[in-house]
């Protein structure tokens, strides 16, 4: 009385419906997966096929297609593992389409660890599936650009010039923009309008606590973040210092590997993880603070990523245990610096990698509510991803755009003065579809402003008609 694939995996009795292409010999193997950590049968079996995860899955929301749902994906893992379906275009396409937003992890009453399952499947696909040349090139391009601040900075600089010089408008007017391939167009459109100060900002290696030091923290300065959102790192550093933390931003830190790991580029991710652990061990900090949700969730999973590496397994676990989102840390240590009022209503958008992957929902709201006269609004359909999801909006531009528009439609129903979210990707994605008059912030930017006694929201309102950049993510 068991689902056939189950029986098949365990070499048990009767198999499922006999279908073309299904090979009996495969039934005792790991099917379409290789033996290197295929998705765990036990984790797969935790799924009771109840469907409770369907309504929170963004791809199911878009497609209304069982395959493109968490339940469908888990089912396919099971089928794949039993060798009942081939690793074909449909199979791969279905997992590529997954945003990795982990909304399904939150909504599952059975506690299915889809995060671990999908992270097991992605490297399998990278190893065992031949992507088309164009796909390969594009992915390589992303991974040779985004994780490298040094490369990204000039690119962004030129990007900024390109924007400033009105080249974008020119391209659009000549219709050339429309002729760029969809994925490049997506990249082009995502480019935030940067303030040059943010692009050239450099992070000091050590910032001492204001007053007596009560904590020594290491700050992940990030890759994409460091370039596009230098302002956020600066704000985080000021706030942490004001709250009594010595802040170390170790030199030599690079990308944490989140993008690679979410895309199944495991080798790359592992190398980056090892390197980051080395760097922070040397910095000798109590806590590693991250202000990008995606990076934080990845770093909290180093323990799993490096479980097979005898030299790193233990160190990785110790490292992961020290990682905190900046709002998480602030909520933990409590405020000491005085906050000044910011009279405004802000809509708080839960970044998937914070809310679903790390279960952090209350802390950022609490930190924001610590600002006098600031009210925090919840957005309808909060559990649905905005479509950013790592490199998703680059490799799957069309669904990403539909999700982005849908998210913004929900955001505007709350009539906010500003929108706040804790992830670089979400900021970029939402900025793209949100009315330019509504500023976007990372929560830490508002805390910083509040401590410094400036009100970025009404000042941005005041200048909304002019194009001058503001302290916020420049609009």
């Amino acid at each position: 009385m068991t689902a056939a694939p189950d029986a098949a995996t365990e070499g048990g009795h009767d198999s499922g419906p006999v279908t073309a292409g299904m090979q009996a010999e495969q039934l005792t193997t790991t099917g379409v997966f290789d033996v290197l950590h295929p998705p765990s049968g036990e984790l797969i079996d935790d799924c009771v096929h109840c469907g409770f995860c369907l309504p929170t899955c963004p791809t199911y929301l878009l497609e209304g297609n069982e395959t493109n749902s968490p339940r469908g994906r888990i089912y396919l893992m099971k089928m794949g593992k039993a060798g009942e379906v081939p690793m074909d275009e449909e199979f791969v396409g279905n997992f590529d389409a997954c945003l990795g937003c982990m909304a399904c992890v939150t909504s599952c009453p059975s506690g299915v660890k889809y995060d671990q399952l999908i992270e097991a499947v992605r490297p399998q696909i990278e190893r065992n599936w031949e992507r088309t040349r164009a796909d390969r090139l594009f992915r390589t391009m992303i991974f040779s650009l985004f994780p490298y601040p040094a490369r990204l900075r000039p690119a962004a600089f030129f990007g900024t010039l390109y924007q400033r010089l009105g080249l974008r408008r020119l391209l659009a007017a000549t219709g050339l923009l429309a002729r760029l391939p969809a994925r490049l167009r997506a990249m082009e459109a995502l480019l935030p309008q940067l303030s040059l100060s943010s692009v050239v900002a450099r992070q000091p290696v050590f910032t001492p606590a204001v007053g007596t030091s009560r904590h020594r923290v290491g700050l992940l300065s990030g890759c994409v973040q460091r370039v596009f959102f230098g302002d956020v790192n600066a704000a985080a550093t000021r706030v942490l210092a004001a709250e009594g933390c010595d802040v170390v931003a170790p030199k030599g830190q690079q990308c944490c590997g989140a993008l690679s790991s979410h895309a199944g580029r495991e080798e790359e991710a592992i190398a980056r993880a090892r390197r980051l652990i080395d760097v922070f061990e040397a910095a000798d900090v109590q806590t590693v603070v991250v202000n990008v949700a995606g990076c934080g969730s990845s770093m909290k999973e180093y323990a799993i990523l490096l479980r097979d590496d005898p030299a790193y397994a233990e160190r990785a676990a110790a490292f992961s245990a020290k990682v905190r989102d900046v709002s998480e840390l602030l909520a933990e240590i409590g405020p000491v610096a005085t906050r000044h009022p910011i009279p405004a209503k802000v809509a708080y958008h839960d970044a998937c990698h914070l809310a679903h992957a790390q279960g952090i929902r209350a802390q950022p709201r609490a930190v924001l509510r610590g600002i006098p006269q600031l009210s925090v609004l919840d957005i309808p359909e909060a559990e649905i991803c905005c479509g950013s999801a790592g490199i998703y909006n680059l490799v799957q531009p069309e669904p990403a755009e539909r999700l982005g528009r849908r998210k913004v439609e929900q955001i505007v129903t709350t009539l906010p003065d500003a929108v706040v979210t804790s992830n670089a990707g979400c900021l970029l994605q939402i900025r793209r579809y949100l009315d330019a008059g509504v500023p976007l912030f990372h929560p830490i930017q508002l805390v910083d402003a509040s401590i410094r006694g400036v009100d970025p929201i009404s000042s941005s309102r005041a200048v909304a008609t002019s194009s001058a950049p503001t302290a916020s993510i420049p609009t």
Partner: protein
Amino acid sequence: MEDRGTVTVLTPTDQPGPAPETPTHLSPPTAGAALADQLRAQLAPDRIITDLTRLRTYECDGITGYRVVPALVALPESTDEVALVVAACARAGVPYVARGAGTGLSGGALPVADGVVISLARMRRVLDVDLVNQRMTVEPGVTNSDITKAVAAHDLYFAPDPSSQTVCTIGGNIAENSGGAHCMKYGFTTNHVHAMTLVLPDASVVTVGGDGAEQVGPDLRGAVIGSEGTLAIATSVTVRLLRKPEAVRTLVADFASAEAAGEAVSGIIAAGIIPAAVEMLDALAIEACEAAVHAGYSLDTAAALVVELDGPTAECDEGFARVEEICLEAGATHLRFAADPDERMLIWKGRKAAFAAMGRISPDYFVQDGVIPRTRLGEVLARMQVMADDAGLRVANVFHAGDGNLHPLVLYDAAVPGESERGEHLSTAIAELCVEMGGSITGEHGVGTDKACSMPKMFSEDDLAVMKRLRAAFDPDGISNPGKIFPTPRLCGERPGPYRVHPLEAAGLIERM
């Protein structure tokens, strides 16, 4: 994945038997391919799925024990498109099965081999909201919760509340006549639908029901609701909305035994109180729910009752005080009152996660869905315990205690040889015990594939024959969800025992209808 069905895996050659369940003259194996080409030409290509990889994910619904791979899946986006797919099926003589969210627990949306699955998941628009007359028209793929969400700001809601409400669709609710914890007071889906647009198996589109509370002629809307997709596909549904009650009071009462809890329920009913909901959980069920949701149920109690009253404040408060007394009289060991809407939501979240949370305490389980006259609860629980002991298995119990709808969850481990068979037998025996007690084999999950073989325990051959006449009027060729509800020799083998007059019935003491 857990299985909550029977071991049966239906292969293409093992399809349910004779007419009207299956069109005998029809559907050569290649019909699917020809149909796919034709439908792709008529609908957008992204509406049709034929690759095996994706088809496999449609092979089962909420119970994975029954699996059949369909020939194709269609994802129509309007009534016209549904009619078009049905017309193509009718012409080609290919059977089809409607599918909502696939949360059904009786294998109702199980595909037919070489047949078509018509998924309504893309039809999820709200078509009309009439706040003044408190009704709303939606497409069939709209989820039960989304109906309420759309009008919650106006203090209105859709009353039927299956535990799966965040996922399951109104189309599925119609097909199964779904109810929920609150149906004791508020009734089932059939009590909350004004009108439906249906696509019949001959592809004609008809409206049943209407604006008025009364319609002329036989109640077709009522006949179709609960027919498990065998009579028609609903493509738009006008539902009745209720005004939110002025007050809601919820308590959780712990008891030292399920019998004591049962006594409290009887006391409440005898006092002339109709609670909005009375749910009972036993220790095992509580353990699972707590593991999943941390709703604050006591872990050290044999049974807990969730009692909810709602209505005008004065009435509600008065009744609630009585309920509290009655629970204490019946020996409640602990009472917990929901202090605010959040705590109330949490209590319900715990209860509603019960089935899915079983995965936390057992590798596999069967969900049963029998109904008994509530007054025989003690007797049934005792019998069930003996049966479980005999089978050497654990049974967790969650049930809608107010209306006698039991959901015994038979826990087993498929990895232990023989356990799944014992589990299946125990689960079936429990359903049939319910019939023996004057109840029913299903209170809300439907007959589907899973219980078709138990139908003869409840109904005579003539009863079933007359029901089939109704089916023949709608679907003479038997192409709409064949193989469900009615037992077939192929599916049931020798199993369906003949309907026999129960000794008590013969003696005129009970009656079975």
